[in-house]
């Protein structure tokens, strides 16, 4: 509403609303993205002061070069066995995603989220962490569990909310949780796990433990207040935590510009907080491994937190409820300049003479078989659409450690209702 007061002769202001470079029908062209050559970025000593490395927040740590060789100071120099294990975890994650995506389309569950194109982000990082380091993931880090050899059947039971789902059918599919696997319960409220990871890390430090925490969020939800709360606490108390921002370019249909990605890098947020910040090629498993290893060493030696931006691309939709063809160019994933993380690691192993296409094909088949067998086993425990798998009473359990009177009364009401409905659901 214009003011009634006479104005000086000034040009009208304009509100800027960001717009992604490509929309459906456009040919994606990423030639403007600056991709520095692999091996070019310096690797500071892990004991160096965060203030001496702001350049790393604006660069891009890359290890695998155009000839599929590992080059430069960030090369973690992993043995071939470790590389093959990492490749297998990534392939298994992709196969798992494929199967569960189809399961959703077949009506076996309500919802699924793939991490296609981002497998290296979770898996290579997990390989660089200890198994008892606590992970506070967001919803696209199923690779952590797979890299930790967690049971696929157990994961699928959760996706299906079936009778063997340890979470009693209370969580949305894919929102895994396992204390034994050092994998913190996933929340649908975005970035809430960030301050929690910092708190866990602070407790570990206060207790003189040696375990560290790591957390992941998307670039979209790095706009949440929780992200900034976590950064200030992590910086102030030098918490032994690794804060990962998975910049996969899209937050459902909002491109990274709406999270501030046009103005600067996400890693650069670390600079303002006095945190070490690294920007990493998220489709380069070796770069992700090296960055995580570096950050973990800083955390373990009381040098404080590290914020790592994984520059990557969400090759699929946000979830099974999303239709990316409605808002982005069809060929973006194919044109993504940093390639596919699985293909790059595979080609690296081949270049080392430690792998070949036949073995890759055999492994892919094996992964598909493993997933298929697991799915059959999980489906024996039930799928979402087929009945109420858990006794009705479980709905009221674990709201509190002990059930208060009002929940007991409401539970009785529910049991009465079930009886009136001819006991359609099972009870204890």
């Amino acid at each position, binding site marked *: 509403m214009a003011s009634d007061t006479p104005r000086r002769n000034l040009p009208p202001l304009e509100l800027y609303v960001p717009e992604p470079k490509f929309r459906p029908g456009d040919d994606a062209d990423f030639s403007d993205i600056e991709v520095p050559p692999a091996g070019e970025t310096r690797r500071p000593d892990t004991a160096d002061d965060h203030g001496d490395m702001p350049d790393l927040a604006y660069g891009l740590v890359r290890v695998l070069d155009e000839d599929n060789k590992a080059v430069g100071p960030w090369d973690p120099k992993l043995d071939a066995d470790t590389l093959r294990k990492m490749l297998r975890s990534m392939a298994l994650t992709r196969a798992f995603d494929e199967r569960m995506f189809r399961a959703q389309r077949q009506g076996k569950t309500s919802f699924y989220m793939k991490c296609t194109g981002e497998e290296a982000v979770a898996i290579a990082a997990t390989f660089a962490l200890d198994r008892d380091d*606590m992970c*506070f993931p967001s919803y696209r880090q199923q690779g952590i569990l797979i890299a930790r050899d967690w049971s696929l059947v157990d994961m699928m039971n959760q996706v299906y909310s079936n009778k063997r789902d*340890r*979470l*009693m059918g*209370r*969580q949305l599919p894919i*929102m895994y*949780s*396992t*204390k034994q696997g050092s994998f*913190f*319960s996933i*929340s649908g*409220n975005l970035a*809430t796990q*960030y*301050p*929690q*990871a*910092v*708190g*866990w*890390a*602070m*407790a*570990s430090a*206060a*207790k003189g433990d040696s375990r560290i*925490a790591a957390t992941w969020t998307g670039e979209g939800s790095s706009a949440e*207040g*929780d992200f900034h*709360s*976590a950064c*200030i*606490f992590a910086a*102030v108390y030098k918490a032994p935590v690794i804060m990962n921002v998975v910049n996969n370019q899209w937050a459902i249909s909002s491109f990274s510009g709406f999270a501030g990605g046009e103005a600067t890098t996400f890693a650069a947020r670390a600079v303002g907080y006095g945190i070490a910040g690294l920007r990493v090629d998220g489709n380069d498993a070796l770069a992700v491994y090296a960055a995580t290893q570096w950050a973990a060493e800083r955390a373990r030696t009381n040098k404080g937190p590290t914020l790592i931006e994984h520059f990557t691309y969400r090759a699929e939709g946000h979830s099974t409820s999303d239709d990316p063809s409605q808002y982005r160019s069809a060929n973006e994933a194919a044109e993504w300049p940093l390639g596919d993380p699985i293909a790059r690691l595979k080609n690296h192993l081949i270049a080392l003479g430690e792998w070949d296409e036949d073995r890759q094909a055999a492994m892919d088949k094996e992964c598909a078989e493993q997933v298929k067998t697991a799915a059959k086993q999980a489906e024996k425990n039930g799928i979402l659409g087929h009945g109420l798998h858990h006794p009705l009473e479980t709905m009221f359990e*674990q*709201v*509190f*450690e002990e059930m*208060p*009177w*009002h929940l007991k009364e409401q539970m009785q009401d529910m049991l009465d209702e079930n009886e009136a409905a001819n006991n359609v659901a099972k009870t204890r």
Partner: protein
Amino acid sequence: MSRGDNSTSQRNMIQAINSAMDVAMERDENVCVFGEDVGFYGGVFRATAGLQEKFGKTRSFDTPINECGIIGVAVGMAAYGMRPVAEIQFADYIYPGLDQLVSEAARLRYRSAGEFTAPLTIRSPFGGGIFGGQTHSQSPESIFTHVCGVKTVIPSTPYDAKGLLIAAIEDPDPVVFFEPKRIYNGPFDGYYDTPVEPWSKHPASEVPDGHYVIPLGKANIVREGSAVTMLCYGTMVHVTMAAVETLGIDAEVIDLRTLLPLDIETIEASIKKTGRCLVVHEATRTSGFGAELAALVQERCFYHLEAPIQRVTGYDTPYPHSLEWAYFPGPVRLRLAIERVMEDVSGEV
């Protein structure tokens, strides 16, 4: 501080709260306290005074001005296995941290099927009567009683404050502990028109030095009576008592102490005895906790009631600064409500 199991000391509420944390920290090294100004300075109300000196900086420390961070960090610490006691300097500031409490701490046990828990305590001064204006006076307790998985506790005396806070810290579930700051420094005499004596000079009362708990979920019958049941908590317990004594009415006054879980048995037994019910709280009326109390009493005791349930509450406005004594429910507002609730069905008083 501790001088043996049976020793007691004169303490006002803030000193009792301080003693509760001291005792809890001494008994369990996982208990840590933090919040804005909590460490070196001991809190703006001095609730944590001396704790950093005694237990060190890793167990009592200052935090950034960031309620989302304070509560979020507390969730992580609790999930690790510690017993964090976080202070939100004023209840009015709890809103930026609400999501961490409501969506995270409250549901962690449920959504992880008991694998992860958040046994944390959020302490926060609440309520008006100290000329705090609309940013230092609110009573947001009903927001938390509406949330599944959080316990809400409000003490009204130094003795209760210590016993309830120790119980809250030792409780396996997340607890929001609202401290009525109007009576931090001593029992408030309950007269809004005679607080000429500075409230900071009000006397303390006897509080045990050592460890004791008042179980959560147990109300306290402050005064037995047969004419009407008055349900109240926090500062309003004192206002209610002042009104009852002035009017010379045979009221039963129940201090709820814990809003969730609520001691429904005590409430029900009392209403069935008196047949009349008056609910008193300082929070705004609409959707306030008094509405829940009135609904529960109506559902359970309707045929015992001889008059409609009455509510005495703050008004549905932000807390005014200069007019706060007109906002604050006082004995006169109670008297008018008591007159209404004591009316016979015939309409005669």
